[in-house]
């Protein structure tokens, strides 16, 4: 392919188009008119700019729409009454459109098409990708005897029209190689080649079906297809910016591999990844799936603003979701309406609202996390425990929270507040209570040292204290949250006249949320149990503290209450309480709350046991999605011109109208409904987008070549009916079965045919978009390395688990955070030779081999790998230590495992590498090299021959 280095939307479409009109008799808006409008009109009359209120993106701004001129832009059936037609045909230079001084005028063909379209009723069909696909009639073809199914009939029908014909079937060895690499990412071994050759000669149809069923059922299948998915969801084992520190999230990678291997239907695959946490009683797998959304970059460099990067992550989730499931450039709409497609600016933020309320906030510990048990048999128990814990916490918390709301709190006055450092506090009296706040700059690790004179607490014993923390500016903070606070320890004592201190023990605390970050009913005590707004404060926050025994102070005694906030937000931001109040209560119900014999006590005991049991289950952590409680919900605003710092109108969760017109969503809308909407019956994009990805993986180029853009500025499908056929097959006939649709594609004649190309065919169809020949593709980065490992016999069979650190050239690993070690397993250790998908993915230090062979470094969703050609690739496969180690191993195999004369060994090895037997000329050449090297360095002979075999063009393509 020669397309690769051009930008994605620039892939050449060769001369096929010249023939297209013969296939379609009538003028079609989307096919014939919209391109003219997009090229000539929408720059001024489009989504961004709508001069004279006319926008050719929206039907109701064109058809029967009276713009500033007063006459309809387009009057269906009446060219004479259509302002547009006048404007493109007039001789009056002032009226002519497009303006002749800035733009070429429309061609006669274009004008004729527009005329025909208006006269024919100006039917606005809308963009093809926004219409629900339906199964088209299967066309007839004179090559029917070669078709293995309807899929071929669509292709053959087109070939016929182009004066082409399908090729004959590929030779068995090369076909098996194609199937094997295409389905599992690994080449066949010699015995597989032998067995298939025999079976193929016997009954090729049965042989191919059997081998496809076998390959699809291998665990290697999931490993190969997961790579495609992990590019889309930007999976990496590190966080990105700042330290780019290690992120433990491999359980998600394993979930994806398993989902492909278990043939998890794509609708479930979708729902779990977008909203698995919101499913009723989610399983461990459902929760792990949501880590899909936690592959966003985080920034933990000192002094960075968590809120900025939290918002960046949310924006990335929106863009990635639309790219991955919809192949739409929704990111476009972040700053303005889409220039070409009917997608509105506010719709971006309505969609963002689905993601804006997850609990994660760019924290270094990647919270919230769950622990995935090492032992799969414990999954159900762990999920049940987690669910039970959440429910218990909520119910226990409710009993405390209920009391907090019922209590008649007395504001405390007469506060004296100072700090342990240079931070200054002032106290002012407000209605019924004192309020303290900081003045001037605030230092890190500021403690609030609050003195309360006995007189301020009244005569009755104090059964509970209520700490209220406010944002500096409570109104503004809702939308533009301030840096928050985190209480990590509390101390209280009664101090008498002589300064003698009597410590006060708190028995329990009741925070204003049932979780995040503290547990209810656990006193904050500097052991990791903390409470606060981390890292941002949107709303007023409250915490009740219940002393072991009610407090009674003598006159002249003082209650000294010290709040410790030692956390520093990202290096320098003090997570201090900057504004607050204190209240007290003498309600005796606080003293009884949660005590033995109380109503909540059994639940507290049960919770303790459940927590203990869960923490005893060994496992690995994974960051997940978790919804913030409704009372702490973050409002979502439009960002003016895409700038997160300038908040515009408040919006609520919603989906773009252009799409809900054809695929309505079920209300009320939350993230789970959004997930279900993507895989709903009439959704026009999801199934098409996914089958197109599969097609591109197998044939090298999509039916829609712009995998990243199904919008009207992307390329059109070469075979629109085939795309719809496959989409309906996938979604309806196969109920979103991924293996079934892949199976149908690889069983087609198109996939099986020979990839041999004649100069004439190459001239007519250089990129093989018509498939008059079989695909011939470069191996992907993973395949290059995995195939070499497989041929050498070194490849490890271990699957899943912690990422591995295969050999890396010296000097490459210089991570900024030196604790992130690259420790390469010794020669012979299986972890040295695992499949590429298990290699540690560090965003700031991409694995050199993968980067050289065009794998993305996974910062953002990558819908398409552009293959390139550089001498550095040859240097990898010839000189990289992994490839040399493999070549040595393969050389040893040639020498000791293979039998016969040098010629015979070379024949077998050549077949292993390419799938086909070498001819005598080729063997002669290899033997010549054998003899030549033997004369110079006899011990290197088989290494050199192995290198040749591993570097053949045929070996590196499939």
């Amino acid at each position: 392919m020669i397309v690769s280095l051009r930008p994605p939307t620039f892939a050449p479409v060769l001369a096929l188009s010249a023939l297209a009109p013969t296939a379609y008799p009538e003028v079609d808006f989307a096919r014939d008119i919209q391109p003219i409008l997009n090229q000539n009109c929408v720059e001024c009359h489009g989504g961004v700019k709508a001069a004279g209120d006319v926008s050719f993106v929206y039907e109701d701004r064109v058809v029967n729409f009276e713009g500033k001129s007063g006459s309809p832009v387009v009057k269906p059936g009446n060219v004479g009454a259509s302002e547009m037609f006048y404007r493109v045909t007039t001789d009056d230079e002032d009226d002519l459109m497009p303006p002749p001084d800035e733009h070429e005028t429309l061609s006669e063909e274009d004008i004729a098409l527009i005329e025909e379209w208006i006269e024919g009723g100006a039917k606005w069909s809308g963009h093809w990708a926004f219409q629900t696909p339906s199964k088209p009639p299967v066309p007839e073809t004179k090559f029917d005897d070669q078709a293995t199914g309807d899929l071929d009939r669509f292709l053959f029908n087109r070939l016929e029209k182009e004066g082409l014909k399908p090729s004959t079937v590929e030779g068995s060895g090369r076909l098996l190689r194609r199937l094997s690499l295409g389905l599992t990412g690994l080449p066949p071994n010699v015995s597989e080649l032998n067995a298939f050759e025999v079976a193929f000669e016997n009954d090729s149809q049965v042989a191919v079906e059997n081998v496809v069923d076998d390959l699809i059922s291998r665990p290697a299948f999931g490993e190969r297809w997961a790579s495609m998915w992990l590019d889309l969801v930007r999976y990496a084992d590190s966080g990105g910016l700042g330290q780019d520190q290690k992120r433990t999230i491999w359980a998600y990678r394993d979930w994806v591999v398993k989902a492909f291997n278990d043939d998890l239907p794509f609708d479930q695959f979708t729902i779990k990844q977008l909203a698995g946490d919101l499913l009723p009683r989610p399983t461990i797998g459902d929760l792990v799936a949501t880590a899909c959304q936690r592959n966003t970059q985080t920034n933990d460099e000192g002094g960075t603003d968590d809120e900025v990067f939290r918002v960046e992550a949310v924006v990335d989730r929106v863009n990635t979701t639309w790219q991955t499931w919809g192949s739409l450039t929704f990111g476009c709409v972040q700053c303005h309406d889409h220039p070409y497609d009917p997608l509105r600016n506010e719709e971006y933020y309505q969609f963002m609202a689905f993601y804006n309320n997850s609990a994660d906030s760019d924290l270094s510990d990647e919270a919230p996390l769950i622990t995935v048990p090492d032992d799969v048999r414990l999954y159900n128990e762990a999920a049940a425990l987690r669910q039970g814990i959440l429910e218990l916490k909520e119910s226990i918390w409710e009993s405390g929270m209920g009391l907090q709301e019922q209590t008649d709190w007395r504001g405390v006055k007469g506060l004296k507040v100072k700090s342990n450092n240079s931070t200054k506090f002032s106290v002012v009296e407000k209605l019924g209570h004192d309020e303290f706040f900081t003045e001037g700059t605030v230092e890190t690790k500021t403690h609030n040292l609050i003195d309360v004179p006995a007189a301020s607490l009244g005569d009755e014993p104090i059964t509970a204290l209520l700490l209220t923390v406010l944002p500096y500016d409570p109104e503004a903070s809702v939308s533009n949250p301030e840096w928050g606070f985190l209480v990590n320890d509390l101390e209280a004592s009664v101090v008498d006249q002589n300064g003698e201190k009597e410590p006060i023990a708190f028995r329990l605390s009741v925070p204003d949320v049932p979780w995040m970050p503290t547990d209810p009913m656990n006193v904050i005590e500097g052991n990791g149990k903390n409470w606060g707004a981390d890292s941002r404060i949107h709303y007023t926050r409250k915490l009740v503290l219940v002393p072991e025994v009610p407090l009674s102070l003598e006159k002249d005694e003082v209650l000294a209450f010290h709040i410790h906030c030692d956390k520093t937000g990202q290096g320098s931001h003090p997570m201090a309480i900057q504004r607050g109040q204190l209240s007290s209560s003498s309600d005796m119900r606080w003293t009884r709350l949660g005590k033995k014999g109380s109503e909540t006590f059994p639940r507290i005991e049960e919770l303790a046991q459940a927590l203990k049991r869960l923490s005893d289950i060994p496992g690995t952590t994974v960051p997940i999605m978790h919804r913030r409680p409704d009372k702490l919900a973050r409002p979502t605003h439009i960002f003016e011109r895409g700038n997160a710092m300038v908040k515009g109108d408040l919006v609520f969760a919603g989906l773009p109208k252009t799409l809900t017109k054809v695929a309505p969503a079920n209300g009320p809308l939350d993230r789970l409904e959004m997930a279900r909407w993507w895989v709903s019956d009439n959704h026009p994009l999801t199934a098409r987008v996914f089958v197109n990805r599969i097609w591109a993986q197998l044939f090298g180029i999509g039916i829609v070549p712009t995998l990243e853009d199904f919008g009207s500025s992307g390329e059109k499908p070469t075979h629109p009916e085939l795309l719809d056929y496959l989409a309906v097959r996938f979604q309806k006939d196969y109920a979103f079965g991924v293996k079934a649709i892949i199976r149908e594609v690889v069983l087609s004649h198109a996939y099986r045919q020979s990839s041999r190309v004649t100069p004439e065919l190459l001239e007519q169809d250089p990129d093989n978009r018509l498939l008059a020949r079989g695909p011939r593709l470069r191996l992907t980065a993973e395949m290059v390395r995995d195939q070499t490992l497989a041929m050498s016999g070194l490849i490890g069979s271990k699957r899943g688990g912690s990422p591995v650190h295969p050999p890396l050239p010296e000097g490459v690993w210089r991570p900024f955070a030196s604790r992130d070690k690259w420790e390469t397993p010794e020669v012979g250790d299986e972890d040295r030779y695992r499949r590429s998908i298990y290699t540690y993915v560090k965003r700031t230090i991409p694995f050199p081999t993968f980067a050289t062979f065009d794998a993305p470094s996974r910062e953002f969703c990558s819908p398409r790998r552009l293959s390139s050609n550089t001498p550095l690739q040859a240097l990898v496969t010839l000189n990289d230590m992994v490839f040399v180690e493999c070549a040595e191993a393969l050389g040893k195999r040639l020498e000791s495992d293979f039998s016969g004369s040098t010629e015979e060994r070379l024949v077998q090895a050549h077949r292993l590498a390419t799938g086909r037997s070498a001819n005598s000329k080729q063997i002669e050449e290899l033997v010549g090299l054998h003899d030549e090297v033997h004369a110079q360095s006899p011990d290197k002979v088989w290494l050199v021959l192995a290198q040749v075999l591993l570097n053949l063009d045929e070996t590196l393509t499939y």
Partner: protein
Amino acid sequence: MKLESLLNETRLRTLEHETRRQFLSRCTTGLGAMFLAGKSGSFASGLDYSTHDTANPFNALPPHFRGKAKRVIYLHMIGAPSQLELFDYKPDLERLDGQACPQSFLEGKDFAFIQGTPNMLGPQYPFKQHGKSGAWVSDRLPFFSKVVDDVSFIKTLQTDQFNHGPAQLMVHSGQARIGYPSIGSWVTWGMGTENEDLPGFVVLLSGGRQPRVGKALWSSGFLPSVYQGVQCRSVGDPVLNVSNPEGISRDIRRSTLDTLKTLNTQTHEDFGDPETLTRIAQYEMAFRMQMAVPDAMDISKEPAEVHELYGTAPGKESFANNCLLARRLVERGTRYVQLFDWGWDSHGAGEAEALNGGFQDKCREVDKPMAALLTDLKRRGLLEDTLVVWSGEFGRTPMRENRNGREMKLIGRDHNPGAFTAWMAGGGIKPGVTYGETDEVGYSAAVNPVPMENYHATMLHLLGFDHKKLNYPFQGLDQRLTGVKDAKVIKGLLA
């Protein structure tokens, strides 16, 4: 079979793809193509996009117009050197030394480490004017002071990032996040290189550590990965995998490649795929690179006089060696050479990063070589079409850093994105200019602020690119080095 004819065939096929007829026919169906080309006026007059093909991703292409610079050497001092100790002389700050910082300087500002109210800190080293241009340079750079008349200073470069990672990314990709192409990638994508036996975009590191966001600083982002920077090293393989495995001589490798060529030629005869020819060419290019790279990277053959000029010592990793290597590489046709020198983060929290400590050593390490680089390029006639750029990623505060609110033992300054100094030389830069002025204490830009996008637009302009036209569609946007903001070329710097 004759390689030459094979390669000719490859070239021919490439050309065929670029005929006007084919291009236009492509446009009639490629909507995206139409729209994108349409924006630059008429697509017959030129493309917005570079159109390399896989067979030849680095062939030299003309930029939008004839630029004065043909290649770039970028010297980045990682960690952000203090402009107040090197180039931005502030007598007022000297007078304010030791006094408490006015609150107005602190309000609404984010600092990485300063807390409470810090004190002002005067320049730590004496300044003098140098050369005919009268440029102010401190006594830390005695060699560089002698070449100031070849240099233009920007005193008011600005960034909106005050943390190293995002700020370094801003300088090199115009964005604060990783995943965007670096300047070197944009440039090599746009104009290829002049010697395809060498990488077109080379990265050289010194200072003992690599920058914190690592390879993201020379990433090709969403551009094809072939345009990422290639790290060349003074120790070990100069380019990864450029050496043959142990025991494989160049002769054996030649024979290996001959056999590969013969077998691949037959593959081409059997299957007819032009990609096979591309592969043959790729291996031949690799073979040439195996010669060309070690040759370019071997500074030992340079005459003693050159070693004396730069202060180089072959065989180790140093900024001096990298400067000499940069000259050798551009001389051989490398398009973009990026140097990163680590160790300039002068907070004062430790000896190595104190203005009255390690900073002095860093100055000594770079002063002579960077002056030598300009001198050497000039005497070889290379300076006129080689753009040399020097910068950090942000500036440093006129306040003394007071980590945890306390006076520290050593002297340092915190991060300041408001204004910092960069210099440029050669390649169409008007020599001896000082552009922009900071306020009395060097805290913010007072006259002619230079936002990062203008700095980038200027670099691209010098190379012959209209920054608005050097773009690439990604995530629904025509992405540019200069981003969506309206960038302006700094006319005052142009010769």
